[in-house]
């Protein structure tokens, strides 16, 4: 794999594709990213779109490099503008000497476009499509061909992907190939000054996935058999993916009437003995809380993805935030132990989701996978997921009961976990109870029995803590002897990792402490809370900071919070760290 970029302001090439909702902005970005991956690039892609179907402005930020990239850049080397508005909106985002690909039909008033360091590539998107006889939306394919030329990407990589995508529909493939070819050709005809040379290397063992896909794949890996979810941005794609793959995965996947139904079904499926999961965002999670508490009282393992977006209420449906941490950790009536795990990239989405199922089963408790829009709707190239190391551990689930003793669903045990018989197990009558109950599951309100059963459930806690400690709840990256230590979680990981690379080039030694489990809160964090520490979160109240303060007493002096719906960009992190470092 050899990738070489020259003439760029850093070691990455960034492309912004802009257009109206409905013009295929997102698809184009994803396709281009995949082609770049195949060329040997590491890529990162982010789609920015308002909550509407047509007409609003969408843009895709794609970034690629020979080294791993962890987040998009707000600035780009190349702008692919599917409409005029995109030129006007993004022209100031272009790096010096950048290139603009746009429809030659577009004309600018004098003064509308002032940058004279850029090279403009007017391409006849619309006319080419007309000539080919394709649908208007195919303009974006033309544009991709042009972009490929500018980046120096082998256009056959694009063509291959088109062929795979439209397999069997030859006419469409042909038209798209033609569109790519023509778009490419048009740029070649220019004496183009933008310099980015890419040499395609071996096709590496890499995948180009979103967090949603990684979570869904993690569930499949874990042997999840039942998935019920009500659509809600940004979690919906997990549902779509799993429904589409129902037959290959042997799952039952469905869209029920509401989030309340979704979680109750999830709990129900788990009663029956299959691994079950649901996914939603904040508003839907609010409706699931009663079911969450129900799963806790009945000691029924379930896995729920809570994919955050800005709130309160409907908030910003298509943007990102890390503002539901306390809700995930504390939401629910009555006292019960849960696990909240917060993956920070695609691999973690995959592996920690799979682990979530083991944890849920072993301790018969609800596990929440806390993600956010910036993590699960973005694309990133990752090393192909390791599917060999995972072992399904269903804990004390049993499907036979040979004992002469009556089966007791809530039998007192040393570790608080009782054998859990699958419904239908011969010789075991299972009674699952939402009221406080006896070992057998019968309702009780006696004081002693109440206290004993509560204590029984809480006997799990040290074991849960142990299990979590095994899973690297705190991960540390960067310098062992840092000038500044950065703290963060979830989707903030990407930009922070990007930033520590940049900082190291500036001579600032940094370390990143990523908290991956929020509940139970990991023990080993204190050792990192020394020297200059900076906290990064995309919320207004510093949820992680609050948890750290609560668990360690440490109060951050330096905090960078962003709550405008957008993820951090690496530059912002670099700036903040420089500010701390120099002060």
């Amino acid at each position, binding site marked *: 794999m050899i990738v070489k970029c020259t003439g760029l302001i850093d070691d990455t090439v960034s492309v912004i594709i802009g257009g109206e909702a409905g013009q295929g902005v997102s698809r184009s970005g994803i396709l281009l990213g995949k082609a770049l*991956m195949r060329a040997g690039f590491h890529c990162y892609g982010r789609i920015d779109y308002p909550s509407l179907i047509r007409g609003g402005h969408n843009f895709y930020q794609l970034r690629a490099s020979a080294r791993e990239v962890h987040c998009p850049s707000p600035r780009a080397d190349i702008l692919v503008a599917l409409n005029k508005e995109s030129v006007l909106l993004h022209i100031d985002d272009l790096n010096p000497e950048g290139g603009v690909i746009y429809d030659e039909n577009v004309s600018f008033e004098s003064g509308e476009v002032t940058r004279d360091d850029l090279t403009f590539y007017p391409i006849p998107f619309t006319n080419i499509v007309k000539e080919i006889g394709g649908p208007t939306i195919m303009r974006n394919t033309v544009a991709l061909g042009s972009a490929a030329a500018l980046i120096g990407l082998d256009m056959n990589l694009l063509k291959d992907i088109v062929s795979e995508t439209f397999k069997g529909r030859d006419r469409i493939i042909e038209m798209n190939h033609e569109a790519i070819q023509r778009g490419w050709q048009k740029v070649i005809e220019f004496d183009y000054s933008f310099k980015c040379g890419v040499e395609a290397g071996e*096709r590496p063992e890499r*995948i*180009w*996935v979103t967090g949603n*896909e990684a979570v869904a*794949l993690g569930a*499949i*890996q874990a*042997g999840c*058999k*039942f998935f*019920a979810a009500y659509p809600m941005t940004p979690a919906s794609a997990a549902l779509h993916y799993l429904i589409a*793959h*129902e*037959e*290959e*995965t*042997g*799952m*039952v996947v*469905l869209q*029920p009437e*509401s989030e*309340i*139904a*979704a979680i*109750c*079904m*999830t709990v*129900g*499926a788990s*009663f*029956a*003995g*299959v*691994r*079950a999961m649901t996914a939603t965002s904040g508003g839907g999670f609010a409706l699931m809380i009663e079911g969450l508490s*129900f799963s806790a009282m009945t000691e029924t393992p379930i896995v729920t993805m809570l994919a955050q977006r800005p709130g309160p209420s409907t908030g910003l449906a298509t943007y990102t935030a890390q503002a539901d941490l306390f809700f995930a950790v504390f939401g629910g009536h009555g006292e019960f132990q849960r696990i909240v795990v917060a993956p920070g990239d695609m691999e973690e989405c995959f592996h920690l989701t799979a682990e979530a199922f083991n944890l849920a089963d072993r301790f018969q408790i609800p596990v929440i996978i806390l993600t956010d829009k910036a993590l699960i709707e973005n694309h990133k190239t990752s090393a*192909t*997921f390791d*599917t060999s190391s995972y072992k*399904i551990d269903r804990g004390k689930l049993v499907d036979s009961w040979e004992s002469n003793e009556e089966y007791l669903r809530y039998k007192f045990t040393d570790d608080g976990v009782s054998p859990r018989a*699958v*419904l*239908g*197990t*011969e*010789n*075991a*009558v*299972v*009674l*699952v*109870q*939402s*009221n406080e109950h006896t070992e057998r*599951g*019968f*309702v009780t309100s006696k004081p002693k029995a109440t206290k004993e059963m509560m204590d029984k459930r809480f006997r799990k806690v040290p074991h849960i803590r142990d299990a979590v400690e095994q899973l690297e709840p705190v991960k540390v990256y960067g310098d062992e002897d840092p000038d500044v230590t950065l703290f963060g979680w979830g989707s903030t990981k990407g930009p922070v990792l990007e930033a520590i690379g940049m900082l190291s080039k500036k001579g600032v030694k940094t370390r990143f402490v990523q908290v991956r489990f929020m509940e139970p809160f990991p023990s080993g964090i204190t050792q990192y809370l020394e020297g200059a520490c900076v906290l990064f979160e995309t919320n207004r109240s510093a949820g992680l900071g609050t948890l750290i303060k609560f668990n360690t007493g440490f109060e951050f002096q330096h905090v960078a919070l962003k709550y405008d719906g957008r993820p951090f960009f690496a530059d912002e992190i670099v700036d903040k760290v420089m500010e701390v470092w120099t002060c």
Partner: protein
Amino acid sequence: MLNVKDLGTIVKNTWCPGCGNFGILSSVKQVIVDLELTREEIVAVTGIGCHGKFTDYVNVNGIHTIHGRVLPVATAIKLSNIDLTVIGFAGDGDAFNIGMGHFPHACRRNVDITYIVHNNQIYGLTTGQTSPTSMQGYKSKTTPRGNQDPPINPLALALTSNATFVARTFVGELKHMNMVLKEAINHRGFALIDVLQPCPSWNRINSYKYYMDRVYKLEESGHDAESFTDACEKAREWDDKIPIGIFYREDRPTYSDGMPTLKKGALVKQPVGDVDLKKLLGEYS
């Protein structure tokens, strides 16, 4: 083979003397015995309310859920193990107030479960508030001047929502209840049974006598349960005469019939961990 006694538990029954729930309990036990079902293959899913104590009193698998959620829980259990016989027990408040959102959907999906509504036209356990099936004019703590709203009609609602088995019975007619319940359990698809269940403690209007004076059997009146129109008409009858029996039945593929995975049998019995993830990952490389 089980007998009725095997289906009892050690729990002291705390329903009020004269409560209609006793009738439902004995009918359910009798029918389990008659149908030669085992304790382990039945799952009783109950809501919250007096009816919800059912799971404490009958020695089969039981799920005492939360208020109003019998249907999603029962649906998922059935989808996860189509070999189980899943019977839901809900209150009228449970089913048609807080749980209303699930009902029309369970009907139209035609999930293969039996849904018994203990219709006492009152909130029993919470000490006697007006329920969605309380009659107009009914006075309670929450409608002290009399209930103004026409009640929910469970049968009409089920029919409108494309349920494939719609019936009503009365606990004062135990044989009839046994018959209806057997048919419902044997029915392949969603079966609603609206059970007229007196609550002597709170509902002083809809007593045993009230129903006894009014109910008549559709089986004896020449009703055609294949006719949707007739069923709709009968469903609207509620005054001097109250029909009980099977109002409507129809054969239609069940919810699980449409699920490709379930063509291979019960989900919980299918192999785990044999998915070709490499292939799925291939889409992304």
